């Protein structure tokens, strides 16, 4: 026993899975402590409008904080290239190419223009563009649009005369806050009040995705634990009874086991979930329902193992020593299948989490606004709204990664244990 435990701990596969799983578990406990607050709260715009990033209050940045001056080479280039939109770059290139096609202008082909190189692009623009230059292939509307673009590009550098005013409530007039804002002015982010860090942006409700993801992971782990416990307890009890007692008890148990085998668990799950009214479906309820539909597999394998164990001589000797049936089951059968049951339990946790995700994607998962699950997050971002169209990868990608990590780590632990308990599988 001790040596088996030791070889489990030494098993690379088991330990890798174990470390990943425990890390996820610890994160779900620690993260809410260091970053408290309601994960379900809607803190921003809906429809995935907040990309991942750190958000700084514009007002607080301007208001009464120390400014510092840094001279960073290329700062202007970075600033401009950040402000120049993708479609503007395309349009500049379009004008330049059309301009270059005219006979009286030499050179300037499409290959020479690199729209990623902001400085070079703007350099070309200011070198060639003027509203007096007539480019033949353009429509009048386009010509006007380019004139407006030119004005806007000029304003990119209109930073020297920036002044910040603030409304004085007593006089009703605007007092000057800063007479001059230079492009070299910086402030320390930690001096700014109201910074919001959204490493994973917000979702369709405008909630912090990371906070919600942590909550959802905890809830899903809970669902897996409850579903796995229910399924394993039912499967173990029925398997032990059917396998050890045999006879009519076994016949009845096998009848129900076969019945549940013929009807696929997931179909049954859908039917039960559909049958339940919206009000009753909390996360735990769904977990119990998942557990109630997934014990068949455990029952069958426990039963067949018990059937081969009950004729062993150590069981016979235990009978001859006058032990009662419950005592024999607990002391002479259970320890022999314990490692197997633990392994089945681990797999049941994993499949419970996946079953909840599947159910939720069908809209039959937990229906509650007080908590989130991994399945519900996928459902809301992929099925019920349009994270794909918004390009809001942050709303579903991390969820999928967490589901995969949990499932991967549990299966790795299972394989590691399998190799210890069934050495012939070791390769």
């Amino acid at each position, binding site marked *: 026993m001790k040596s088996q435990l030791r070889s489990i701990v030494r098993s690379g596969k088991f330990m890798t899975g174990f470390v990943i799983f425990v890390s996820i578990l610890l994160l779900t406990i620690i993260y809410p402590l260091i970053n408290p607050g309601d994960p379900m709260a809607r803190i921003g715009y809906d429809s995935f409008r907040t990309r991942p990033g750190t958000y700084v209050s514009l007002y607080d940045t301007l208001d009464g904080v120390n400014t510092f001056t840094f001279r960073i080479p290329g700062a202007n280039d970075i600033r401009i290239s950040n402000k120049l939109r993708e479609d503007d770059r395309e349009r500049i290139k379009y004008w330049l190419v059309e301009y270059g096609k005219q006979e009286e202008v030499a050179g300037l082909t499409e290959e020479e223009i690199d729209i990623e190189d902001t400085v070079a692009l703007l350099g070309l623009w200011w070198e060639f563009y003027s509203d007096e230059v007539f480019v033949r292939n353009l429509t009048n509307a386009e010509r006007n649009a380019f004139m407006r673009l030119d004005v806007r590009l000029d304003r990119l550098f209109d930073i020297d005369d920036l002044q910040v005013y603030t409304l004085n409530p007593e006089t009703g007039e605007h007092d000057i806050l800063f007479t001059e804002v230079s492009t070299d002015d910086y402030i320390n982010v930690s001096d700014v009040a109201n910074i919001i860090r959204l490493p994973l942006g917000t979702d369709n409700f405008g909630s912090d995705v990371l906070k919600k993801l942590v909550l959802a992971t905890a809830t899903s782990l809970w669902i897996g634990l409850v579903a796995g416990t229910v399924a394993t307890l039912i499967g173990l009890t029925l398997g032990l009874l059917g396998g050890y007692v045999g006879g009519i008890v076994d016949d009845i148990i096998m009848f129900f086991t076969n019945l549940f085998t013929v009807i696929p668990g997931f179909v049954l799950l859908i039917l039960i979930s559909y049958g339940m009214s919206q009000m009753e479906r909390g996360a735990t309820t769904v977990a119990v329902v998942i557990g109630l539909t997934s014990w068949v597999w455990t029952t069958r394998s426990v039963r067949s193992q018990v059937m081969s164990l009950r004729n062993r001589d*150590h069981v*016979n000797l235990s009978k*001859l020593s006058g032990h009662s049936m419950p005592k024999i089951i607990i002391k002479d059968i259970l320890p022999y299948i314990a490692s197997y049951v633990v392994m089945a339990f681990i797999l049941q946790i994993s499949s419970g989490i996946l079953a909840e995700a599947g159910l939720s994607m069908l809209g039959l998962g937990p229906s509650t606004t007080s908590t989130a699950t991994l399945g519900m997050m996928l459902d809301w971002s992929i099925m019920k709204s349009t994270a794909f169209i918004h390009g809001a990868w942050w709303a579903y990608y991390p969820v999928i990664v967490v589901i995969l990590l949990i499932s991967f780590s549990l299966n790795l632990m299972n394989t590691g244990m399998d190799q210890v308990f069934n050495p012939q599988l070791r390769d």
Partner: protein
Amino acid sequence: MNSHDRQLCLSGKGVTKIFGFGSKKTLAVDNVDFEFYSGDLISIVGESGSGKTTLIKMLLGLTSVTEGEISFMGKKRDIGSRRKKKEYWKGIQAIFQDPYSSYNIFSKIDSVLLDCINMRGGRLLPRKTKIEMMREACSFVNLKYDEMTNKYPFELSGGQMQRLMIARIFLLKPKILLADEPTSMIDACSRATILDMLLKLRDETGMMIIFITHDMGLAYYLSDTVYIMEKGKIVEFGSADEVVLNPKADYTKQLLNDVPKIHDPWEFSKNRRKDAQWTEQFVV
């Protein structure tokens, strides 16, 4: 000639065991009759697969009897309830063939001996007395209790395990002991010791031993009565001398031919049984 003045202890009529059904049916024990008398040492001889183990599992009440009737102490055996079974097992006990699978690998071996004390109604005895009893049982089979206590079965050798099984019988003191090839799975050196201990225990308690073996020679030296089993049937039985010196069934003759050491059976007399030398010379 010898059995009428003694008490009939265990008997069976038309005892049959069929495993499985349909095309997978195995007739393990086929319509077997037997009469075992108290105090006797009976051998059941037959090659592997002849149904010996199945027969003694039925005698123990560990397997149901498909057909036929087993009587215990002259009355039809009744082990319907758990209490009756427990009562029955106070009188009939067994040593199994494979010591390695006879123990629960998760329990310390002390529990095996403690169970026996409890079974004999010693549950409420003070701990010291229990330890004294276990110590006595261990020393009967030449084991040191202090070396055995708190150990797990896998820490013992096959011979030690089987000796502990005899210590178990020593504590239980049943009327009937069923020994299912108790020496076939252990090393040759331990065999003679095991057999000696069994016989010593029998001399002390006067219990009836049903000794299962596939070894005709061993059966002859040990037993008063020999039953020969072939493919689930009892093909011949009688006193050891009758069966060995004057075999009737072809199968018995064949079994006797397979015994290498009997050149001159008349030379061996029954009283050599008490001599520890014979087993060694014979079994090794």
